């Protein structure tokens, strides 16, 4: 069962996302900020990461770079709100594979995760 790390500071978003993924046969690990995400990544070695950009403690872009340092093969999709195109491009430059726009559509999230896990 592929394992997905869901990183978001909003508990509701985490919950929705976790529920969706669990229902579709994924194993879900949650983290609520960038620092937390790095720790959880090291700890649980997920197959893919859904990473929110705007977060306290450590934002998604920094977390992405850190995760890629830990694991250059890390498969990360960014989760973002509208109007953050330049950030997304930065993220792609830093190795993000894809992104999902909030508020997300379930099938879009599933498609992105499926593509990441390959």
């Amino acid at each position, binding site marked *: 069962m592929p394992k997905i790390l869901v990183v978001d500071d909003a508990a509701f978003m985490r919950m929705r996302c976790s529920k969706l993924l669990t229902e579709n046969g994924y194993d879900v690990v949650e983290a609520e900020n960038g620092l937390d995400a790095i720790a959880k990544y090291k700890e649980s070695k997920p197959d893919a990461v859904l990473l929110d950009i705007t977060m306290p403690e450590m934002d998604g872009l920094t977390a992405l770079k850190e995760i890629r340092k830990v694991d250059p093969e890390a498969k990360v999709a960014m989760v973002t709100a*509208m109007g953050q*195109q*330049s950030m*997304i*491009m930065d993220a*792609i*430059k830093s190795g993000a594979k*894809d*992104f999902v*726009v909030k508020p997300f559509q379930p099938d*879009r999230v599933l*498609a*992105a995760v499926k*593509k990441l896990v390959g």
Partner: protein
Amino acid sequence: MPMQFDASEEDLKVWLAEADEQIELLQNDVIRLEKDYDDAQLVAGIFRAAHTLKGSSAMIGHARMAELTHAMESVFGAVRDGKLKPTSDIVDVILQGVDGLNAFRQEVVTKEQSDVDLTDTVNALHHIVEEVGGTFARMPGQPAPAAAEGPAAAPSAAPAVAGDGGILARLPLLDDEREAIKATVEAGIPVWLVEVNFKPDSEWLAVRSFQVLTDLSNIAELLKSQPTAEEVEAEKVNVQLMAVVAGSDADKIAQTVNSVEDVALSRVDAYLAAAFAQAPAAEAAKDLVPAASQAPVPESPKQLEPSATKTPVEVAARPPEKMAQNVRVDVERLDNLMNLVGELVIDRNRLQQIALQLETDLGVHDAIDALNEAAQHVGRITDELQEEVMRIRMQPIESVFNKFPRLVRDLARKLGKSVDFVIEGKETELDRSVIEKIDDPIIHLLRNAVDHGLEMPDERRAAGKSETGLIKLSAWHEENHIVIAVQDDGHGIDPEKLKASAVRKGIITQEVADRMDDRAAVELIFAAGFSTAAKTTDVSGRGVGMDIVRANIEKLSGFVTIETAVGRGTRFLVKLPLTLAIIRALLVGLGGQKFAIPMATVVETLRFEAQDVRTIKMHEAIQLRGRILPLVSLRELLRLPPLLYPAPELLLPAPSDHASGSNGSNGDGQEPEGDQSSGMEDMAFYLARPRRSHKMFVVAVRLGDRQMGLQVDSLIGETEIVIKPLSRFLGDVRGIAGVTILGDGQVAIIVDIPSLVNRVMQEQLLA
């Protein structure tokens, strides 16, 4: 006979969109060949259009269309290579071909084979090329020509198979880029042109473009892209992205690109060495007919297959430079938007009225000030919004004008006349609502100019003019109007002849004719049932007279005037409002009811004393600055019940304050204070006062270059109104152009001045 095409319904839509573009281009440009055959750009464009059509019609299996376009392409190739001078006869044949294309296109829509047979046209086209030593690569199924000549014998006329799909034309390359690609290809590394079309509704175009470029860089070497990576990062992107990459293979590239979200269609094509060998002249000279082609093939077309067949082919995308800043919007949505803005205009007027009312009723109050301020702000924003929406709806008049060169050309040839047709100002913009309706009047004026305006070549020569007549169609803006002029340098209109003709036809009496000045005589052309040609030709004598033309133009709140000089020519000027959706109107009162008169027809408003009215030849009129202004009562025109005046024998002598009179003046400023009431709201005033001394309100309106005074009960003011059609239930009530909702929520009738007044004018003119 039902037809089947090798494409899904969706694909056919794309096919049609593209075909329409190409056919339109051919329609517009082919007739320019006669004169501008040495315009390389023009010819190249025409050639490319025929070429693209050939390819796409072959692709869906429309053999007759492919055959026709193939033949046309060959002719254009010969023109391009300077081997063939397109005479009028040759252009005639090509135009038959263009008509055929339209018929074939229609077959794709209806899936029914029409009985259009273009075998003769195709043969004629073949013959034209063979005459100048060109050759054909016959289409499959056609008998091969007796002696197939190779490209060496006729290098350019024969559509050499470059096998590149016109690849060099699809993404312009700089010289060094071209060299680099060529070198890479020659070194055996494949180079691919990747075309990516995103879903138009993608909200993340920049990121998607960026993803495509990043992903492509991961599997191949990115040589060039449009937009560039820098432009993408600056979010300067289009729904289409083109990239040139070296290495990898077509399948992998397609797969990579297609895995990016929001990619609607992609296409991967290989740059082949042959493309460079013949560049740039052969950029489009590619035969889509595969191996069956008779022409020697420098590079096996089979090499094309991996790219050409395995990736979805999408060709409907417009050139990127057009996509850059534009969004396509459904016309219906624009109309809706305009309607909503219209509602807003009504509410704005209403708000302002309420604020005013409150101020009148309650005096100064902070809340009223605030309301006033808000109302004004809403007003300003509404104005701006309205202006913006109007601007969005504006289209260049080009789409209408483009139809005319063919019309004029065909007509002139039919009549044996030689015409130089010049179009000016086709970029002039006006609202859709008007654009849709101006075809017919212009067509009629143009036909008239060719048929009646211009002389036959020998007549022209005899008159010392050049044999080729000039017809000029031009458009320009004048304030809030567009002016369209149709001008010829023909024999002009002879007022004496017109008069004689009108008398002969019983339209006027000899007596009237004798009194008529030249200007009025020329206006006779607009009289009902008048035609200037001695005999009715099948060209302009289609049962529609100039009277209908004038009526149609006036229905659009426009007017038409005529200038003519015997021996020198005639010019018709059509002046139209830029929009018909929201107009300025003058509100007048009749009884307690308000009526709106479109400002386009209003010249001025006047106040007169009833005693200033003269009766001239049975008609009422007033003198205005030395001129006679015929007077009619709007009340009577609308068949409203007359106001009740006391019987004449009860009339009192005119009060002395009017005795000094304002004869000949516009009657203003002579009224005692007590008479400044707003007029008709106060019926008692009119009932009580003898008619000879009451003040009269007159709206001077203009139709063509004639004026007439409309007597109304009161003048209320100017306002912007949104025209709403009168319910279909009521039918087309003559004299009523529509209705509008006023600021106070009440419905006002919009008076159709042209239809009301025209008849009266005609009567007075001809009486």
